[in-house]
């Protein structure tokens, strides 16, 4: 496996605030990495560093390039969607295709037109005439038509309704992802992308709380629903988080044997959202 992104001790401060604090991680080729964190956790800053949009301390290599200093070469092989609103509102769809064709060496107009023909986006329309969902479809079609090694999505479905969100991720998987390409995605709505991720990374207050593949989550994390005496026994095993659900205790354990826990109640693998809460609250406690 080759790693596409390698970060070691990456930090970024704004005045006294450490937006990203000494972060190290790797993303391997062919993975879909979800970067999960609350607002202001440092997600966007970290993505900006990866995209060469901001300077930082520490070492960061993206596709073997220094993102800040070799941004032009980097952008030939990376595509990104920052937010749904960023396509210029005055541009016509055909103008956008013309512009992409003349500035992006890895853009296939044919592919973009093929993808767009499946949507309701008219080619002579201006972006300002399209609905928010259609703008996202347009943006995704453009981005998908770039033969990029890494796709970075920062809250790509913000403000879209559920139908468009489902469709967006469906198209992303069927049209873009082929096992060779790599995706780095951030979102609040973890539940919706949980099933498509191969890796997750939790970030809070600029620090990484968890960096794991999805398949190794069940080995490391167990959520136990229990009550009464068993709850006391379980508590002695050191749960990272505990909450009450309908009079029962739900505890999240890290690195505790599942078989052992199963004797004390109902053991299962936590959802990413629950695990995230457990890690954030656990780190704060």
């Amino acid at each position, binding site marked *: 496996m080759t790693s596409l992104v390698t970060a070691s001790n990456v930090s970024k401060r704004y005045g006294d605030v450490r937006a990203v604090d000494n972060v190290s991680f790797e993303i391997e080729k062919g993975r879909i990495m979800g970067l999960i964190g609350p607002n202001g956790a440092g997600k966007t800053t970290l993505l900006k560093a990866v995209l060469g949009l901001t300077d930082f301390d520490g070492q960061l290599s993206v596709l073997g390039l220094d993102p800040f200093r070799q941004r032009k070469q980097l*952008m030939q092989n990376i595509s990104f969607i920052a937010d749904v*609103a960023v396509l210029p509102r005055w541009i016509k769809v055909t103008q956008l295709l013309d512009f992409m064709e003349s500035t992006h060496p890895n853009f296939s107009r044919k592919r973009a037109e093929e993808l767009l023909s499946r949507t309701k986006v008219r080619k002579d329309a201006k972006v300002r005439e399209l609905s928010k969902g259609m703008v996202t479809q347009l943006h995704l079609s453009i981005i998908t038509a770039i033969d990029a090694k890494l796709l970075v999505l920062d809250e790509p479905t913000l403000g879209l309704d559920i139908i468009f969100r489902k469709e967006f991720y469906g198209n992303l998987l069927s049209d873009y992802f082929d096992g060779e390409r790599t995706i780095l995605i951030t979102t609040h709505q973890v539940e919706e992308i949980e099933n498509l991720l191969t890796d997750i990374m939790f970030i809070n207050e600029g620090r990484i709380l968890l960096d794991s593949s999805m398949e190794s989550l069940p080995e490391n994390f167990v959520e136990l629903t229990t009550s009464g005496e068993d709850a006391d026994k379980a508590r002695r095993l050191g749960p990272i988080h505990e909450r009450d659900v309908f009079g029962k205790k739900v505890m999240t354990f890290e690195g505790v044997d599942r078989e052992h826990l199963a004797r004390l109640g109902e053991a299962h693998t936590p959802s990413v959202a629950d695990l995230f809460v457990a890690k954030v609250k656990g780190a704060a406690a």
Partner: protein
Amino acid sequence: MIAHQLALVRRELWEHRSIFITPAAVGLVVTLLVITAYVAASGFGGHVDIAIITAQNVGETERRAALMAFLAGITSVFILAAGILTIFYCLDTLYAERKDKSILFWRSLPVTDAETVISKLLTAAFAIPLITFAAIVVAHLVNLVVSSIFVSIEGGSAARLIWGSVPIFDVWTFFLVLLIATPLWLSPFIGWFLFVSAWTKRSPLLTAFLPLLIVPMLEYFILRTTYLWEAIITRTGSLPLFRIADVSVFDEDSLRDMTADSVSLLAIVDIFKFISHPGFWIGLVVCGLFTTAAIYVRRYRDES
């Protein structure tokens, strides 16, 4: 590289439709005014006839000069409009992309900040003047046709009075040179406006013009000197593109000896004087510094 720049400049022209609309509107208004003037003048039938008979009788030189003045008058409106257009374009171009956040999309493409800012500089310094020039040529032709129709209706010979006399290529070459030289001479302002556009958080117009007044005032109050003010006045108030007028041409003898061929706008242009003027090169350097600053601001400022 060149194809890249052309694509970027083309994008500017897509976004800023006013680069086409402004000269088109000016051309329309000017032509309507000229037509109105002709129609109004027709009311004084007798006088007009006399004017045309006189025109047929006066020399080639006077007719040439009159037509030249007519075309120059039309052109001056276009140049004034292009100047205002350029100021607004420069102040808007790097500001609007930050306001509507489309900068995030542009920066997701393999185009450097330097390439982008330079495309905006090229649009201001070359594309706007050249499009304005094209509009001027069209307006000249249209207004000469309108004049020909009017002269013909009144019984004059348009072929001789208009087309035989108008120094059209002299006028066009002159204004083409002027339209290329003026933005180069005023390039420090273009650079400054682009920098303000990339840098300011609000109100680019005020941010651009207030320092042009306040900084020279501070210089005067603190240092008791007026170098900056003089530099601004000299830059905006003069263009070293012309030969120093030789007063003797206005002597009666010289005027009498003047031939039609000597009625030439191009004759007063001195390109060598212009490009060998230190002010020309200093201006380009100042423009380069401000443009570099604009590139750095776009490159390094974190828009979050």
